[in-house]
């Protein structure tokens, strides 16, 4: 009897400890975000001295300043444009290629496929140097289309690999049926293969959206015109020119973080699925 109580006490304490551990890490994850939000509602007079967790007079002017003077409205629109066009581009281009690598026959099929796989395995840290030189040479630096094409290339190899693995496992019965009904390969790709590959495409959409939204270095090197900058570069630019105006900087950060967090919360199931399938790919490489 005593033994049993002791055991219960022990496992109770253990569970309590685990819960405290998890909860404290969760607080550590969320607190900096809360602090950012809190500081974005303060004024320059109070931000350095006020110690309360939630300052009583909430100031909303920081957001207006960030939106107009800080140009964040333009940056936000640019980020949305870049993210949407890159993701659409990657989905179309990579699914066409992956479908061909998996289903169609042509000489050099394996060669081209392994070329993309190899690109994933070779890290090339300074590749932005020749890329920027080339973009300047062909006049695509400081243009929307130049940045979009560069970012499509960044996500292309991984997306082709994920989709090809998916198509390889997918039974081809439906495609055969469509072919017998007289569908051409382009129509089969569009009407049969793409809708069936929806789970894999969801993974590609999420990871590429995160990647493009958060990309900094190519935007920094390629886009000098303020009207073309995405949020990440805009935030850095604003911080470098107004380094003491913390309330407005924090408001700008909130603007740049909110869309991606909302997307994440809406799609987080797919993210976990994508990460686990990514692990499978990583292991097989």
């Amino acid at each position: 009897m005593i033994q049993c109580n002791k055991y219960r006490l022990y496992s109770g304490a253990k569970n309590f400890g685990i819960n405290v551990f998890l909860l404290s890490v969760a607080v550590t994850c969320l607190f900096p975000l809360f602090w950012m939000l809190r500081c974005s509602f303060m004024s320059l007079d109070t931000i350095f001295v006020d110690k309360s967790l939630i300052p009583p007079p909430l100031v909303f002017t920081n957001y207006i300043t960030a939106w107009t003077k800080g140009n964040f409205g333009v940056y936000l629109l640019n980020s949305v444009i870049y993210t949407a066009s890159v993701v659409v581009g990657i989905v179309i281009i990579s699914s066409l290629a992956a479908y061909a690598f998996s289903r169609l026959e042509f000489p050099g099929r394996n060669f081209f496929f392994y070329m993309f796989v190899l690109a994933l395995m070779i890290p090339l840290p300074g590749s932005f140097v020749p890329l920027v030189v080339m973009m300047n040479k062909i006049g695509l630096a400081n243009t929307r289309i130049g940045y979009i094409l560069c970012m499509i290339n960044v996500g292309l190899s991984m997306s082709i690999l994920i989709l090809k693995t998916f198509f390889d496992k997918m039974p081809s019965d439906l495609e055969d049926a469509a072919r017998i009904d007289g569908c051409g390969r382009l129509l089969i790709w569009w009407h049969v293969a793409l809708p069936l590959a929806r789970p894999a495409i969801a993974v590609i959409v999420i990871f590429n959206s995160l990647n493009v939204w958060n990309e900094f270095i190519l935007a920094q090197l390629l886009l000098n015109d303020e009207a073309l900058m995405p949020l990440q570069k805009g935030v850095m630019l604003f911080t470098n020119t107004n380094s003491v105006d913390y309330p407005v900087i924090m408001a700008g950060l909130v603007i740049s973080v909110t869309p991606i967090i909302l997307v994440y919360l809406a799609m987080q199931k797919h993210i976990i699925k994508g990460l686990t399938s990514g692990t499978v790919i990583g292991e097989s490489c």
Partner: protein
Amino acid sequence: MKIELNITKANMFEWARNYCFVLPAIAIFSVFYIYPFYEIFNLSLHEWNGISPNRVYIGFENFKELMQDEVWWSSLVHAGYITLIALTFQNTLAFALALACDREIKLKKFYRVVFFIPPVLSEVVVGLIWQWILHAGVQGGEQIGLLNRFLDKIGLHHMVNDWLSDPKTALTCIAVVHSWKGFGWGFIILLAGLQTIDKQLYEAARVDGATSWQSFRNVTVPMMVPVILVVVILTVLGSMQVFVLILSMVNQGLVFHTEVPVTRILVAMTGTNRFGYACAMGINFGVVLIMISLLFKIISSRMKQA
């Protein structure tokens, strides 16, 4: 037996139509990956300021100079230090959290969502938030930065520090923030790995009288080795190449204590306009990274055999 060549006109036409599917991908890949790949090697053999029309061929001089460049080698050491902290602190934390979430526990879904929030944020945002928290300024006798204010409040005045300017703490702060941002990846991958382990194995171990430590040591760890290796490789490659976080956390000046290889490449390119030297650095660093990942490949194949 006669081998029939199938290269008929109809066949060629068929191939050409199939090629159209891969053409856009190959075109973009050639222009934005293969050409820069070739050009980085080409440029590394030249001295070029980025503007002048003639590039001066200097052979391997850039690489020879790089061998003597102390700032470069110390930047590699800095990246190694950040990686070491990420490997130990960040991955231990990720594994502990994954183990904790693998059992029956309240708020499991909540934790899974929350731990992956930092990885979703951009390095620019994370760097700026933490720069503000670690701020070292003083106004009206009050600490501005949250961390310093907290230390001041609980009476640890001697701990108050200029975290991001002090060469002793700057790199560690960066490494810790990097771990804060990154542990969610490891957590999700490791948790997924833990959930694939057959629960009957634990049951069998328990029936055989194994303690929870023994079943962890002899069931969990061996089953998790492949997943752990994937996380380790991802952590190493990611942490060695960290740099946007550094750009947004500290303003690089004439001090070199927070330099990492990629910031050196950037400085050579945009600061001193030595494009050839920047490319040589990129190649040198790429070789280092390939050697590290090969090392892990060898280790993992050894472990699979054992």
